[in-house]
């Protein structure tokens, strides 16, 4: 049986889609057969981040409505043969996602895959509720700032009350914190919440800390999941995150300010920019 992972946050723009793409790719690179589903019906982006936007023919809603079968809608990743993408529909809205329909598609996928990664839309409405309803594992993506932390807290409440596991009184969803866009320098000056502050408020296990990095934007724009870029901090941090998700014990990196030589690198980079 596949593990269903929801990447969620409540707040928008914190890095759900970037993280979904990176984590799904990371799992596939580790040999797990993985499918990543875009639940953001009407505002689909995952296909861009994964670099397969030109290959979308059928989508998730077509499969739910029986207008296409799964094999027609699933897009096989070019970089990794264990990875598949199920894109969202751009012409419909979130009400196209019904509990029965989503449940049926996930059941079908669960037969073939090891991991199903659900990329949740922002908010707490139908799309987000459907993305988290069937989850076994939740990766709560949070930026180190108060509004994001509060929205994550809200989503954690939803996971504990509105999910299938909560409604059927099964073992609760395993909740993990993924702290994204983390900037140690700004934490030091008090502009940003620190890892420990967020952990204390949300009181869930930390899965990873992704440093703020130019490479994320670059990767998104070129349609390559940032985890492929093993020269960037963000890419390495996502690799660590995936390893922890698979049960490996990996220390958290990139949460203190860089040492001298990389500081020099930073200055040089800034000098070149200006």
């Amino acid at each position, binding site marked *: 049986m596949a593990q269903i992972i929801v990447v969620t946050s409540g707040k928008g723009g914190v890095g759900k889609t970037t993280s979904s793409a990176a984590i799904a790719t990371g799992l596939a690179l580790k040999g797990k057969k993985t499918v990543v589903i875009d639940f953001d019906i009407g505002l689909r982006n995952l296909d861009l981040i994964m670099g397969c936007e030109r290959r979308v023919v059928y989508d998730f809603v077509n499969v739910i409505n029986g207008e296409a079968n799964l094999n027609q809608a699933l897009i096989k990743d070019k970089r990794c043969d264990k990875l598949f993408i199920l894109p969202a529909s751009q012409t419909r809205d979130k009400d196209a996602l019904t509990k029965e329909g989503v449940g049926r598609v996930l059941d079908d996928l669960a037969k073939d895959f090891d991991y199903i990664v659900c990329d949740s839309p922002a908010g707490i409405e139908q799309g987000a509720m459907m993305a988290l309803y069937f989850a076994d594992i939740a990766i709560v993506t949070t930026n180190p700032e108060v509004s994001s932390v509060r929205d994550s*807290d*809200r989503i*954690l409440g939803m996971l504990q009350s509105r999910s299938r596991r909560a409604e059927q009184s099964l073992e609760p969803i395993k909740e993990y914190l993924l702290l994204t866009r983390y900037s140690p320098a700004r934490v030091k000056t008090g502009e940003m919440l620190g890892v420990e502050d967020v952990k204390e408020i949300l009181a869930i296990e930390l899965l990873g800390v992704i440093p703020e990095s130019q490479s994320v934007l670059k990767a998104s724009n070129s349609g390559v999941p940032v985890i492929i870029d093993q020269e960037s901090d963000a890419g390495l941090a996502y690799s660590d995150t995936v390893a922890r998700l698979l049960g490996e014990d990996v220390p958290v990196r990139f949460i203190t300010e860089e040492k001298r030589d990389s500081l020099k690198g930073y200055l040089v980079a800034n000098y070149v920019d200006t």
Partner: protein
Amino acid sequence: MAKQNLELKATSFTLSVLHINHHDLDLVAAELDNKLAQAPQFFLGAPLVLNLSAIQHTQIDFYALKQLLTDRNLIIVGITDASKEQIEQAKEMAIAVVKSGKQAPKAELPKRATKIVKQNVRSGQQIYAQNADLIIFGAVGNGAEVIADGSIHIYGALRGKAMAGAAGDNQSVIIANSLEAELVSIAGQYWLTEHLQQYTLNQRGCVRLDGESLTVESLPQ
């Protein structure tokens, strides 16, 4: 506007209810005479309601019963707790059928139980302990609300809203490991963060009512 010639208003009256407990009217008459002899003035022309619950299943001579009471200057204004046949008879004789108002339930002492929540209360969640104290093993997040008719104990940080004594009990208290609340309220008296922070800075403490105003007490270590 012309004054109306009649008005309909509801008013309640206290009426004596005579319970007829036996169908043998001779026995009833004898007992009644006894009673009347004790306080003849009190019963003179007194309006009475007859309660027939004890003789619902027996045949009685309604006319004779009415006559018996009328002879003694008692006025029947209605019957209550009567059987169907008795009600029919009463209607024929133009006697009203009345229903007694439900007896006011005895003011029960509110049963105070305890509600225990063994997890963090997240933003957007609301927990209400009706007629109970509320104990939370965990934190109450910003944007969460915990409400109890009794006291609230939080073994974690209180960052959201806590309302104790919601039904008006001014002896209720709020205790938390860290008082960082958006709002604390006891029996309707409340403080927002700003006011609370004049008394405590994210410390363990107990909020209670001192007369009309709230106060924060430190707890023994």
